[in-house]
């Protein structure tokens, strides 16, 4: 019964989405307020219906109703409750329903929170947003119905992939999707603006909170995935340049570019057409990501050719929306008014530099990910494009951007003063030089690249702080005045500082783990010990244990520090009974300066009770993910900025004069 209700409201949501596409767009065309108002009501209705549908599927998973095919294939009665719930989106059908739900959620927020949007623009945004909903709801009902019944129902389910039975990964997909789908708002705003033929400062102000929200979610989603790979896959890698990761990195890169170029539109009215194009491309890349992951084309070109139904459908959605939007763009963009002019060295110039690098980096990832597929499809020739390729192309491209990052916010709009900016950065520059020399001395010679990279990380952390210190006249005026200025500094400005220094924190973690990781791969017998990174690690032997739906070999270790303090650690090797699939549960002890990381390997064939053990010391590893948290909270702080809360499309002329420049 519940499955049928879920199915029924899903179809109802599709019908509502069709109405939400057609009526407001016609209404906006005829300037008919009554028709336009239908958009908001429909958006809220569509969201509620999809919420009911999604709740129905969740209920089926929680109660383990194996008469439903999706549940039978992806759940199991013995599974812990958390994974029964996360199992809802841990499969193709459920995750597509989540996609549609988030899409409708964003549409509903426009209906609820954007009362002050001009009625025409709001109607068009809702219409375009709903048209994407129509496409995906059709996709779900025609090719991926989550409510299909099985007859006869099996006694128990096949279980969720063990790798998904992990708290970190349970919440990875919702964040990732919120990011992917969130960029649909930027797309809808861009297409609506093209239809209206008007892109101005007010438009940029409305579109930015959505872009920022999507970007924050995507940042956390990618970060969770990377952290999971780090502790779960058992050898301490944190980024693999694997096509699935690249699929999420591409929209992140172009979304970051979009976030910045929209500032220029909002503040200076320049870069309008470019920003609209970026908004279209960013959502396009989200769709490309969905296509790559959902179609099976990554496993092999042949697998895709054998069962192309879903892949071709998503490809059609992709071509229709992105092709259509680009056509509209080609037609309407030339009519958009060009904005203010500026010198090459200026805040605008800096953001163009940012966009240039981010978009090229994105193109590098795009070509690197898709070229092998294209080459094989066209010529049948197989080549490999892996981590070494991206390290050789992406990394050198990104470094100039990182060097320029702290300088940009010091440049004034229209015409900046590079020398002046560098003078204001003299303190960070001094600290960077000390850091480089100190690193060089501490590492006892060796490659100069590592100290330079550490210097870059310090530059990225201290530079943004120096910018804020300059704004609030830290140490240059009485402290009470500094406090007053700090209180008056726009939240977006604080957000920018936090997000930018987060980049530095991440870079510091990356440099440290790449340069100074210590690795030992040894066979350990019970009672034997080894030394790594200043601690002594003793293996106490492994014993068999049973969990709710797995059995495991649990290796027990004792770590003794130089000070004499000792603590236990555990690293296990699990086999999930239902799938007879092994996973590693690594033991990680977090120190301030890095992680002690143990992965239990195979049992030795001859020596009794001995195991292969992989031990790593990963310096500053957690900083990689701390940095992304900084980026997330930077975005969050910026989101609370006054001008988004009041939302009135007035230019705060007086304010911007006294504040000089305010940035993201």
């Amino acid at each position, binding site marked *: 019964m519940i499955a049928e209700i879920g199915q029924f409201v899903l179809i109802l949501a599709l019908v509502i989405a069709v109405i939400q596409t057609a009526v407001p767009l016609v209404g906006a065309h005829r300037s008919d307020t009554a028709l336009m108002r239908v958009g908001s009501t429909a958006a809220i209705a569509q969201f509620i219906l999809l919420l009911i549908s999604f709740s129905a599927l969740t209920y089926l998973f929680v109660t383990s109703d194996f008469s439903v095919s999706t549940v039978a294939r992806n759940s199991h009665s013995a599974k812990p409750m958390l994974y029964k719930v996360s199992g809802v989106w841990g499969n193709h059908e459920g995750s597509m329903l989540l996609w549609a739900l988030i899409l409708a959620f964003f549409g509903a927020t426009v209906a609820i929170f954007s009362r002050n949007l001009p009625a025409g623009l709001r109607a068009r945004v809702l219409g375009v947003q709903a048209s994407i909903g129509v496409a995906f709801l059709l996709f779900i009902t025609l090719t991926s119905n989550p409510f299909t019944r099985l007859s006869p129902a099996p006694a128990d389910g096949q279980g*969720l992939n063990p790798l998904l039975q992990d708290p970190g990964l349970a919440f990875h997909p919702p964040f990732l999707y919120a990011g992917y789908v969130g960029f649909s708002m930027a797309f809808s705003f861009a297409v609506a603006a093209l239809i209206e033929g008007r892109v101005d400062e007010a438009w940029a102000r409305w579109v930015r909170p959505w872009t920022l929200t999507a970007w924050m979610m995507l940042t956390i989603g990618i970060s969770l995935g990377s952290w999971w790979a780090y502790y779960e896959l058992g050898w301490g890698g944190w980024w693999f340049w694997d096509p699935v990761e690249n699929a999420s990195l591409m929209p992140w890169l172009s979304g970051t570019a979009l976030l910045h170029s929209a500032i220029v539109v909002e503040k200076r009215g320049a870069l309008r057409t470019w920003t609209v194009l970026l908004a279209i491309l960013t959502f396009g890349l989200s769709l490309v990501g969905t296509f790559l*992951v959902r179609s*099976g084309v990554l496993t092999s070109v042949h697998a895709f050719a054998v069962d192309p139904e879903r892949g071709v459908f998503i490809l059609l959605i992709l071509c229709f929306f992105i092709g259509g939007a680009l056509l509209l763009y080609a037609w309407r963009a030339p009519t958009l008014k060009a904005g203010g002019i500026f010198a090459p060295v200026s805040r605008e110039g800096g953001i163009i530099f940012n966009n240039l690098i981010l978009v090229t980096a994105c*193109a590098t990832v795009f*070509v*690197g990910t898709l*070229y092998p597929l294209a080459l094989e499809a066209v010529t049948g020739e197989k*080549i490999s494009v892996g981590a070494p390729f991206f390290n050789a*192309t992406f990394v050198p491209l990104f470094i100039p951007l990182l060097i320029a990052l702290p300088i940009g916010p010091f440049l004034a709009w229209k015409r900046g003063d590079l020398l002046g900016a560098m003078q204001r950065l003299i303190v960070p520059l001094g600290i960077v030089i000390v850091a480089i020399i100190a690193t060089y001395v501490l590492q006892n010679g060796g490659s100069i690249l590592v100290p330079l990279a550490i210097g870059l990380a310090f530059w990225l952390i201290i530079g943004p702080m120096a910018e804020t210190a300059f704004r609030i006249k830290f140490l240059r005026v009485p402290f009470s005045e500094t406090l007053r200025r700090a209180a008056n500094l726009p939240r977006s400005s604080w957000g920018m500082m936090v997000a930018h220094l987060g980049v530095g924190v991440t870079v510091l973690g990356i440099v440290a783990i790449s340069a100074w990781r210590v690795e030992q*791969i040894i066979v350990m017998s019970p009672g034997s010990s080894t030394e790594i990174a200043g601690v002594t690690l003793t293996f106490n032997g492994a014993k068999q244990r049973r969990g709710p739906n797995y059995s495991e070999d649990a290796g027990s270790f004792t770590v003794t520090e130089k000070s004499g303090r000792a603590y236990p650690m555990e690293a296990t090797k699990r086999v999930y009974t239902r799938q007879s699939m092994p996973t590693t549960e690594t033991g990680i002890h977090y120190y301030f300066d890095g992680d002690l990381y143990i992965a239990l390997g195979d049992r030795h064939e001859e020596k009794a009770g001995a195991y292969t053990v992989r031990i790593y010391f990963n310096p500053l590893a957690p900083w990689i993910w701390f940095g992304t948290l900084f980026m997330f909270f930077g975005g969050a702080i910026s989101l609370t900025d006054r001008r988004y809360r009041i939302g009135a499309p007035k230019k705060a002329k007086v304010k911007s004069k006294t504040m000089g420049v305010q940035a993201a």
Partner: protein
Amino acid sequence: MKTILKLAVFFVLGWQLSALPARAVEPDEVLQDPVLEQRARVISKDLRCLVCQNQSIDDSNADLARDLRILVRERLKKGDTNSEVVQYLVDRYGEFVLLNPRITPHTWILWFAAPVTLLLAIFWLFRASRRRKAQMQKPPSALSEAEQKRISELMQGE
């Protein structure tokens, strides 16, 4: 196999995976000479485990990856240079074994598409800014007679 596992995470269609989590280099493979071993690790990171997806033989626990790791170490012990070892493997398994493809005509697009895009974008920006500047410097065109007349009319009207 790591990649396959990661893919599985995304599509999880009830696949039965025979793959183990990556456990890579085993203790018995490691060479006595640390310099040679270090070279072997560097080379291994750029070689694909042919039966895996996008994974180097250094990270993979597949049997084939193990055989290749041992092969690399044997070649090194025989005195091959790094590039000789790589060439030996390319001769045996083809270009597919390289995770970092060589620059040859069929990988031109791969290697040069992004840099060329960047150069074109810079060129275009440069031209656009020149054009803008030229437009700015052009003196405003003189008023036509009709405009002159209208102005004097307005002035007189004051």
